[in-house]
């Protein structure tokens, strides 16, 4: 299916401005002094619940053409007329804060501290090249104090948030399988996923106390935290497969899922399942695979591949290996 319309909006400033002139590079992050592993790309997810201050260290870099917002004579001495700024903005807490950086050569180093109590939802860190004082400039250039000269891709921080109460995530509960009428016959199980209700429920066997201790481990470094991530991967793989199969089974011939969570599962997995296919064709591919019994094993294989990629299994295992080696 192809969308029959597309709308694009783009903003322009009435003077020379380089919208891709700057880039933010985060080299290290620490949480209350303890170093934090970085995610790939231009975002950082903080999983810990209890922390006060997140510190990011890195640099804002001037990319080629970054000084295009300055007239020619100023381009040779940008440090005299312009400053680099990092502006932190958090919509949920109406928080805005600017940090001026010293522009040296090709950019500026920074160390930025973010207090958890000021943040909720997404926090954006935006780089700006800004005119320092009002100047007389040739037509086509910005001469006002504070005028925007260049910006670049923003860096996003996602502080930990309690999972929504409104069913955004799978419901996960600890249950003593031994005390449960349904599950007591299978005390050896680690988890049980129920998919027949309105929303699925993942029950984790609280009777395996050592396992639970690892599942509840805090922090992002240390052996237990690494183990926890690998345990999560194990559970996630099984559970995602079950969720996926259950959702696929429920689809009607047009690819509509009767329950919202089933749609959510497919929205999450289809891009990994059919990475080469245009968004619109993924559902068709899925339905074609489902329709042909001969392709069911192919579907299972693709689901497995998608999950391995999505879960970043190797990364977590490698971290565990590194930590285990280090602690020997």
């Amino acid at each position, binding site marked *: *299916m*192809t*969308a*029959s*319309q*597309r*709308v*694009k*909006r*783009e*903003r*322009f*400033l*009435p*003077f020379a401005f380089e919208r891709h002139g700057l880039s933010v590079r985060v080299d290290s992050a620490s949480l209350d002094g303890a170093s934090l592993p970085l995610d790939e790309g231009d975002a950082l997810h903080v999983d810990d619940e209890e922390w006060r201050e997140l510190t990011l260290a890195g640099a804002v870099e001037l990319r080629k053409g970054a000084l295009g917002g300055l007239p020619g004579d100023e381009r040779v001495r940008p440090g005299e007329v312009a400053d680099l700024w990092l502006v932190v903005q958090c919509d949920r807490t109406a928080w805005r804060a600017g940090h001026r950086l010293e522009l040296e050569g090709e950019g500026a180093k920074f160390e930025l501290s973010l207090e958890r109590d000021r943040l909720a939802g997404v926090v954006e860190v935006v780089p700006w090249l800004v005119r320092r004082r009002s100047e007389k400039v040739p037509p086509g250039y910005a001469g006002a104090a504070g005028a925007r000269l260049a910006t670049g891709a923003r860096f996003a921080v996602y502080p930990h948030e*309690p*999972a*929504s109460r409104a*069913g*955004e*995530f*799978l*419901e*996960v*509960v*600890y*249950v*003593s399988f031994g*005390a*449960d*009428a*349904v*599950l007591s016959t299978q005390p050896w199980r680690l988890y*049980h996923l129920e998919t*027949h209700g309105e929303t699925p*429920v*993942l*029950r*984790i066997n*609280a009777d395996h106390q050592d396992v639970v201790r690892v*599942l*509840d481990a805090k922090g992002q470094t240390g052996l237990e935290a690494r183990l*926890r991530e690998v345990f999560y991967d194990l*559970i*996630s793989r099984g*559970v995602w497969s079950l*969720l996926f199969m259950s959702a696929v089974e429920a689809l009607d011939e047009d690819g509509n899922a009767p329950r919202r*969570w089933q*749609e*959510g599962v*497919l*929205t*999450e997995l289809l*891009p990994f399942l059919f990475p080469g296919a245009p*968004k*619109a*064709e*993924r*559902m068709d591919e*899925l339905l074609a695979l489902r329709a042909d019994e001969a392709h069911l094993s192919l579907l299972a294989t693709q689901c497995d591949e998608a999950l391995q990629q999505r879960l970043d299994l190797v990364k977590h295992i490698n971290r565990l290996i590194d930590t285990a080696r280090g602690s020997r």
Partner: protein
Amino acid sequence: MDDFGTDGLTGGEDEDGTHFRALCKDTLFSNKREEGAGGSYGLGKSVLWIFSSFSTVLFRSTLLETQGLGNPRLIGRTELGSHALGPKRAFQGPGWFGEETKQRRGTRAESVWGPAAAEISGALGFQARNDHDTGTSICVVGFKDPTADADLGPVELARATRAALAEYFWPSMALPTRALTARTEAAGQEVEVRPHDADVAPFVTAWESYLRGEVPAKAPLTKPGDMTVVEVPITIPRTHGGEPEVKGRVALVVRLAAKSSEPRAGQVAFFRGPGMVVSYRDRSRLALGMRPFHAVLACGRGRWPRKPTESDLAVESFLRMSEPPAHDRWEPTPRLKAHYRRGYAKALTELSRRVDEALKELLIATHVMGERGPERLQRRFPIGKAGSPGKGRSAFGMSGLDARPQDGAWSFSGAIERKAGEGPWSVQVRLAEVDEAGRRTEEVAIEALSVTVDAEVVVEGSVASVTVPADVRVVPFRGTSAPCSFTGALELELAGRMVAG
């Protein structure tokens, strides 16, 4: 074997479509014409000869109507490919035991009637009956179960027969419709078949309670013995003969059992009108944590035997045709295919699926309340996201968007390409000033917009529209705004749309 309360083997020696002909004379074709008849192939009677060591079966019948010939009627048949009487007289096909009658070509054995028949049958070991005790007695000569390793004695045989009758025919033995009672006799002792005493007792209890109207609909099952009935929909497809689709219902009666170790716990008894259980299906492992139960799925005439509806009759007919000769399941048969249009197979699988769903809903036990699990793990499953999984690829590509001040107005340009689809399409360009949060504050009027292809352009205020013919794929455009003060940033909105129709 004796049956009572039936019409007896009525019909002349060569009269088509009679009970006599169907049971004694025909071999392959049943005369069960009525929609609610038990069988549908007429293969059941061949079993009688198979169980005879001599392939010989004798029938003695007391008829409701003897047409003046007098009760009882007696005939025997030996089912053989060919046989000989002495060295000279050879015959093809079955041999008959009866009264020798002259025919145009040779002689044949026909039924013996009246006192002669009574005398012979008495001598053969048939029990005497009064004339008002209508029905048929069947004697399988040299009874031997071809499937058994060892011969069962009469006591054991009677017990096994009782058990089988109880196991499969309890629906028709139930009150108040009581269509069938059965007794077995061995060693001179007669014992009534009582399904209530057998393993199937929970099914019988559920079924009888249902027939008495005592089972509540969709009631929660809390303690063993609790019962409820759920109506399960079934859609019978159109027939090739032009009968329309029928939306019917079947009754699923569920009774909570005490333990999963009870006999037949977790099974569903499927049957239709004649009241013979077609199959018991084990659904105990449908989902983890199913509570033990016994269930009855009464279909067709069986749904409400006292007063079947039109749709019950349609379901009855449909399911009868879905039974293979063994009458042991419902499946897509050649007869079903010949009679119904597309959808007959789906109707059967849907019925099973819906029964399973209903069982799950009723029987999956409630879990103990748990404590909230690790939130980090929970956040690994963002399954609540709205949005369409993979629908909505754009048909349009946009490139080279630019806008800059020139002579006191915005000068803007760009290109839009249709990448998919057919037919005419349209392009819309719109200008507005925006504030620091990107919110539109004021529309910016467009003075002119030009395109380098053959297309109609209409400018109205801040919006310029281009109607593009089907054969044009790319529309490069260039335009200017009305004079403005450049107080804020400009938002250029570009839209591509397929033209409907």
